[in-house]
């Protein structure tokens, strides 16, 4: 990551106005969004949206053609082009042919994409943004920091300063008064404008209609008062059927601002009368700008299912810390990273793709059902493919890829780390765990890794067998978690074997785009884990579980490698996470937890991969309650803790405040114990509590349960 980019992050996370406004908004958004969707089957709805948008993405050419015919039959002029420069030229020509002096605009990201305003202004045309947020940032000479709320980063005091200058009068920061000033200032612009420019939320092929939504009412004025209306529409806004407008409008306002519907919706089909009785000169520009290339890419085609609600920004734990400006000038957040890589160029996304911590929160709420984290991973993979890995990472992965060397170095680290150990934590660790940041202590590398301890564990001979996949953290930092797991499974009638040749699950290289390394890890692990016939391959690390269950397969598929695919699928079929397996054993009556105990309050932190990829969240909670704990839920229990593997090393300035928020939410429950299913989360949160000198036990569910066996 470049210094300039790092600086922009530091600046953003230290901007209290920005993080305050975004933080408050994101907290309220989750609650309000859920309320707006009450009584609606979101999965069913987004399934329909994904289908109809995916159909459109596969038929862009046909739908563009159909739209053009139908809109022109109604009297509109349609201009189709691939090239942003041609769009700008076309608009300027229409303006000049009609002697246009002033333009009013309603909010349009497509015009931001092609940097239309400065182009028209350079040609001597006055361009006025009319959306309040857009107007504010236009006056401030800035760019939008959020796709739906462009000026969310500014305070009312800053707005009052800007407006005061504009009206030559000292205004207070009273918001209703400021809004009134905007109304009074902009009203004459609407009335005087020669041309209105809008975007389009939807374009309907079978009728040639465009759909515009606003809350302020500015799009109604932009499309009604000036004699010329130009709508600039990206071709991804095309849908086939008129009836499907209702489907998209059911989700878009709910997902964008948690409204049932925006204040105003206009469906415009052909020219309408102007105030003076003449007919509107209506131009619709269908802009491609790399969208059909995207549609032709089997992986990225699904990004065209986006309906531009920006909910991926609203739920992103990173976005609420850094805001939009860090992402660049136009499209921001998760989907913005993907659009930038395509509409601009892949290289432009190099820095911003690194902001994604892969927590999956956006994927859960996307009304277009886009797997945004997966597409960002694909960007990473292609970047590495194009440019190779940074040298340090290359060195690290060459180690990770050599199990004996890697494990040898971890063992060495346990000795080298010793002088720095205080209690269970060390301040500095060698190797790639070096340079970890303040705000979190790190575990010492265990003196005796799990693989050595395992040999000393006496297990009963049992008929059913499970292979334990430990993962690096349990093997080398938290071997006691592995011991607890064996204790539980033995009680449930399962004997545990530990295949010695298992190695890193490949998540760290994969999450850094080094798919070749991940694939080679996958092959080593498949060989090791399938050597003996077992019923289950069990892991107590959700990231590893996801690797075994999903990512070995998808890594091979991404690379076009087929040799190990069948075995990867067999492995996936056997893979199970700890809480799900224990729940199964309890339900089958094979395992009993001590009954009737009162162990007090506990709170539970959902790990990203467990909750959102493996869809496991109730099982650990039920087990903890069965064991005798009283569950006190924390605020934002399923928000990422900021660990994200090597993320916390690469972007400590973001990881640290995310962790602080998590610690605060845990402490506010008053529970003396917090449980979680991921050793990575334990490392992050336990380390945070240690630095915080908070008297709260941070434990893996497996440790808690092992103490409560009958």
């Amino acid at each position, binding site marked *: 990551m470049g210094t300039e980019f790092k600086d922009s992050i530091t600046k953003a996370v230290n901007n209290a106005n920005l993080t305050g406004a975004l933080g408050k908004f994101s907290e309220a958004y989750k609650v309000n969004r859920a309320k707006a969707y009450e009584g609606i089957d979101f999965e069913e709805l987004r399934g329909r949206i994904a289908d109809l948008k995916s159909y459109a993405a596969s038929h862009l050419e046909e739908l563009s053609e159909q739209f053009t015919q139908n809109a022109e039959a109604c009297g509109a002029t349609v201009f189709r082009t691939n090239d942003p420069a041609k769009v700008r030229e076309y608009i300027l020509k229409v303006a000049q042919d009609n002697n246009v002096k002033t333009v009013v605009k309603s909010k349009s990201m497509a015009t931001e994409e092609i940097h239309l305003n400065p182009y028209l202004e350079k040609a001597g045309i006055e361009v006025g943004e009319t959306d309040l947020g857009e107007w504010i940032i236009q006056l401030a000479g800035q760019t939008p920091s959020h796709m739906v709320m462009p000026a969310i980063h500014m305070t009312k005091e800053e707005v009052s300063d800007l407006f005061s200058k504009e009206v030559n009068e000292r205004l207070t920061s009273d918001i209703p008064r400021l*809004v009134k000033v905007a109304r009074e200032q902009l009203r004459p612009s609407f*009335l005087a404008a020669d041309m209105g420019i809008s975007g389009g939320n939807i374009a309907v092929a079978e009728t040639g209609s465009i759909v515009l939504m606003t809350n302020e009412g500015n799009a*109604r004025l932009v499309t009604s008062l000036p004699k010329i209306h130009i709508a600039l529409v990206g071709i991804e806004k095309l849908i086939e059927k008129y*009836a499907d407008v209702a489907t998209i409008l059911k989700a878009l306002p709910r997902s964008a601002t948690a409204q049932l519907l925006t204040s105003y919706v206009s469906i*415009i*089909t052909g020219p*309408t009368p102007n105030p003076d009785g003449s007919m509107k000169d209506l131009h619709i520009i269908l802009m491609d700008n790399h969208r059909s290339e995207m549609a032709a890419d089997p992986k990225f085609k699904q990004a065209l299912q986006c309906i531009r609600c920006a909910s991926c920004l609203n739920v992103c734990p990173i976005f609420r810390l850094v805001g939009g400006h860090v992402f660049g000038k136009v499209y921001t957040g998760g989907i913005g990273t993907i659009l930038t890589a395509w509409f601009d160029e892949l290289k432009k996304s190099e820095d911003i793709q690194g902001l994604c911590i892969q927590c999956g929160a956006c994927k859960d709420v996307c009304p277009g059902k886009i797997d945004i984290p997966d597409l960002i991973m694909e960007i990473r993979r292609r970047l590495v493919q194009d440019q190779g890995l940074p040298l340090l990472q290359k060195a690290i992965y060459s180690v990770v890829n050599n199990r004996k060397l890697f494990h040898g170095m971890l063992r060495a680290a346990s000795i080298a780390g010793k002088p720095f150990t205080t209690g269970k934590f060390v301040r500095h660790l060698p190797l790639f765990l070096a340079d970890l940041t303040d705000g979190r202590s790190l575990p010492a590398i265990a003196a005796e890794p799990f693989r050595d301890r395992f040999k000393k564990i006496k297990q009963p001979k049992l008929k059913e067998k499970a292979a334990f996949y430990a993962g690096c953290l349990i093997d080398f930092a938290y071997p006691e978690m592995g011991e607890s797991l064996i204790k539980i499974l033995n009680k449930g009638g399962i004997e545990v074997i530990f295949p010695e040749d298992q190695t890193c699950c490949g998540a760290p290289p994969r999450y850094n785009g080094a798919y070749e390394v991940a694939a080679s890890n996958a092959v080593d692990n498949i060989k090791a884990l399938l050597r003996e016939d077992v019923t289950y391959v069990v892991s107590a690390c959700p990231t590893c579980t996801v690797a075994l269950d999903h990512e070995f397969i998808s890594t091979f598929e991404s690379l076009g490698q087929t040799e190990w695919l069948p075995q990867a699928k067999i492995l996936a079929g056997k893979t199970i996470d700890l809480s799900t397996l224990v729940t199964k054993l309890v339900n089958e009556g094979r395992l009993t937890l001590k009954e009737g105990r009162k162990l007090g309050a506990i709170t539970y932190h959902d790990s990203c991969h467990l909750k959102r990829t493996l869809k496991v969240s109730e099982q650990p909670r039920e087990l903890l309650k069965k064991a005798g704990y009283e569950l006190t839920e924390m605020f934002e229990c399923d928000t990422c803790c900021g660990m994200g593997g090597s993320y916390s090393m690469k972007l400590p300035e973001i990881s640290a405040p995310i962790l602080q928020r998590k610690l605060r939410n845990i402490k506010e429950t008053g529970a003396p114990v917090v449980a979680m299913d991921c050793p990575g989360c334990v490392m992050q949160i336990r380390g945070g509590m240690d630095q915080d000198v908070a008297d709260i036990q941070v434990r893996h569910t497996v440790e808690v349960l092992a103490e409560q066996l009958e």
Partner: protein
Amino acid sequence: MYQQFKTRAEGVSAEVYRFKTKAAARAHVIEFLHAEGLADEPDSFALWADCPFLDGMDLGALKGIAGLKFEVTCELASTARFGISQMEWALADTGSLAQNSTAIEQRLVSSLSTIHIALVPTSGILPDMPALLSRVHPKECAYLAMITGPSRTADIERVLTIGVHGPERLIIVFVDDLGGTD
């Protein structure tokens, strides 16, 4: 459906009334206008766009009321305190109103005024948007407008503020004997 509509519309700060007859609705509108200071100041006039509600009404008597105007122009609409129009449909599940707004007068009075009074036939209440779209095809409607509550913004510090470019109040008056629009 009326009750659901009322709950939803009031949830987004619209004001909802219902009358059995046109006469009662008319009386209410006039009373409302006077209570809100009709004709007290030069800009305190109401602009009433032509609509079926006015059919068969004693227009002479209405025109005699100071501050009531029926000639809709852009200039008048941009300074009018009140805009009155008939909206043909109401959507119960979102509390929205809908209208074929192809005629510019309909858009002017409902988008430039400070207070928009919408007259709606009670029989025009539909369950939801799919029901509306199945009735109104773009072939017969070049400008389909939906209005849900007054104009609003949250662009400054996420504080919900009413009345940006459109009306700051939306008064919805249902009339049972206004007939249907389809």
